[in-house]
């Protein structure tokens, strides 16, 4: 009897206290379904481990983090409704979205709801619109386009180079920047084309490349199409080297394209797995049977960014968080993060990588 009263008392206390001790709701959003779902999967795994780690220590400001997951399937319309749903749930931090074409419209909603967000979307327009709540923990397409284009123009001067994109905000933006950088080096493009993402047949593009004598193709778009183009080029007897952006870190490319993936180059931020300070986390991911490739570590870093900013600001209010994120410097698994006035990562840096035997490493190594 006595015990029961105690129990009732406790639960009463818990009830009364719950508004004060509610968990911090943080969220991720990206393509959890759809053809780019594997990227969403990486983000989820990274964020989940980060939150488990943060909660395992002391949480943030003495409270636990709780993760909400939003699925935009890389569809801009769905991204906006995900953003609205998240704003309704009163999340206090968002890591997402992934596709630039989703991040851009969704960010307006978060801005209105005063939710700070950290994104890996690389299209320049993400931060060029003057929204104060956006922080980009990845580099920008104009930076990676410049690196990719310069590399191509220098390395393949004597070969015919084509630039192709998939018409998405990310793909076209990146391809335009690569083309600009190549032409800036006074190298003429053999072909400038666009394709439709999500199709399976790219034989027409391959024939066109073949008849134009193209050996090197820069591609703005996602890994699924690159794998198909490679396979179909191989089938048509065309040896093609493809240079792409950060999306080609996905190992699905290798499973889908097989040995042909050894001809794939891409640009990405310096590999976080090579960061000695992150060795411990990398091992924890591998123990959990998660290879911390692609966006896994970025999702982890985004949660660290939030936790550190909140601790620093001693608050989870939007204005305080925003100020802390903009002004501070944060130690994360992807290195030191700090942001400029637009919210862009101050030291992104892009490296050129090459796939080889199912693993990627800096080119030339």
């Amino acid at each position, binding site marked *: 009897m006595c015990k029961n009263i105690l129990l009732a008392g406790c639960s009463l206390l818990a009830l009364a206290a719950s508004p004060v001790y509610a968990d911090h709701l943080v969220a991720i959003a990206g393509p959890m*379904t759809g053809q780019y779902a594997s990227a969403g*999967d990486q983000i989820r795994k990274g964020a989940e481990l980060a939150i488990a780690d943060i909660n395992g220590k002391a949480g943030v400001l003495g409270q636990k983090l709780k993760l909400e997951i939003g699925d935009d399937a890389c569809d801009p319309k769905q991204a906006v409704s995900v953003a609205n749903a998240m704003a309704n749930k009163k999340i206090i931090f968002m890591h997402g979205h992934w596709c630039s074409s989703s991040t851009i419209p969704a960010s307006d909603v978060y801005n209105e709801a005063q939710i700070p967000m950290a994104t890996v979307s690389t299209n320049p327009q993400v931060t060029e619109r003057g929204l104060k709540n956006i922080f980009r923990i990845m580099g920008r397409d104009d930076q990676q386009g410049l690196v990719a284009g310069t590399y191509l123009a220098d390395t393949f001067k004597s070969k015919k180079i084509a630039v192709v994109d998939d018409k998405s905000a990310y793909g076209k933006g990146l391809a335009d920047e690569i083309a600009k950088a190549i032409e800036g080096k006074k190298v003429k493009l053999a072909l400038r084309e666009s394709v*439709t993402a*999500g199709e399976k047949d790219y034989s*027409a593009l391959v*024939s066109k490349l*073949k008849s134009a004598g193209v050996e090197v193709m820069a591609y703005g778009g996602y890994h699924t199409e690159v794998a*198909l183009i490679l396979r179909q080029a191989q*089938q048509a007897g065309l040896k093609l080297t493809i240079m792409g952006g950060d999306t080609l870190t996905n190992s699905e490319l290798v499973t889908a394209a*097989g040995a042909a993936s050894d001809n794939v180059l891409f640009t990405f931020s310096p590999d976080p797995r090579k960061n000695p300070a992150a060795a411990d986390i990398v091992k924890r991911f591998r123990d959990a049977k998660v290879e911390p490739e692609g966006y896994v570590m970025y999702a982890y870093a985004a949660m660290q960014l939030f936790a550190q900013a909140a601790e620093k600001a001693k608050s989870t209010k939007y204005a305080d968080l925003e100020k802390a994120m903009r002004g501070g410097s944060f130690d994360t698994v992807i290195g030191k993060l700090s942001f400029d006035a637009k919210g862009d990562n101050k030291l992104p840096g892009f490296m050129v990588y090459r796939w080889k035997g199912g693993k990627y490493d800096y080119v030339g190594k």
Partner: protein
Amino acid sequence: MALALQQLINGLTLGAVYGLIAIGYTMVYGIIGMINFAHGDIYMVSAFIAVTAFTLLASLGISSVPLALLTVLVMSVLFTSVYGWAVERTAYRPLRGSTRLAPLISAIGMSIFLQNMVQLTQGARVKPIPPVLVGGFDLLTVDGFTVHLAYSQLLIIVVTVALMTAFSYVIGRTSFGRQQRACEQDRTMTALLGINVDRTISLTFMLGAMLAAVAGVLVTVYYGVVDFYIGFVAGIKAFTAAVLGGIGSLPGAMLGGLLIGLIEAFWAAYLSPEYKDVATFSILILVLMFRPSGLLGRPEVEKV
């Protein structure tokens, strides 16, 4: 010239696949007057069955290519036809006789169900198979451009032609074909004549699923990758092919498929790949303006 020939080959290959799927749409429309939007996803399921079967055979150590292809084809056709039957039985038959919109919505629901089922059970990742049929013939070389016919392309074209011949025979000459055509004309009358209408409709769905399964296997061999999303684009294109050729008409579906494949291939090669879907659908609109029932479709005669 060489490029044109190459694109003719590419276009025919693509068109043959569209055509095989389109027949499923057109047959179902012919017999019960509904668009089976889940048909594209049946095709997707068949491709997954093919990948599973290929992996299974590889693990059993069967390396003979013709044997592997044949086994996979048979397995995929069998399992997919069961799917075709089950979809009809669960999603459409209970709604027969209700408003025209009900089965349509049910079809869209079935399509979403199949997509999500495959995504959840097989994962969202792209499923690849190692190249099964490598190599091909170099037909001719003009100005350094070699026209290449891959074995897998040849396989697609040959199998499609063979299936079409067999299929016209089944519809035109067998008693099942006669029953099916009778159901198309008047279901009540057919039932009065002692033909099991429900069974005929079920068989039609299974037949459509079988053709989609063949397309699924061929595509898996040709492109080497499948994901749970392939049914959507292929379904839309095949549906367009069926409408272009005249929905309800079997040769029309094949013709529509080939036309769409060729339009896409040539437009992408000579104009811009960017606008190839615009071109396809513009031609569809043009054809429908002048021939509202499609290229080979018969205009519906109002019965008095």
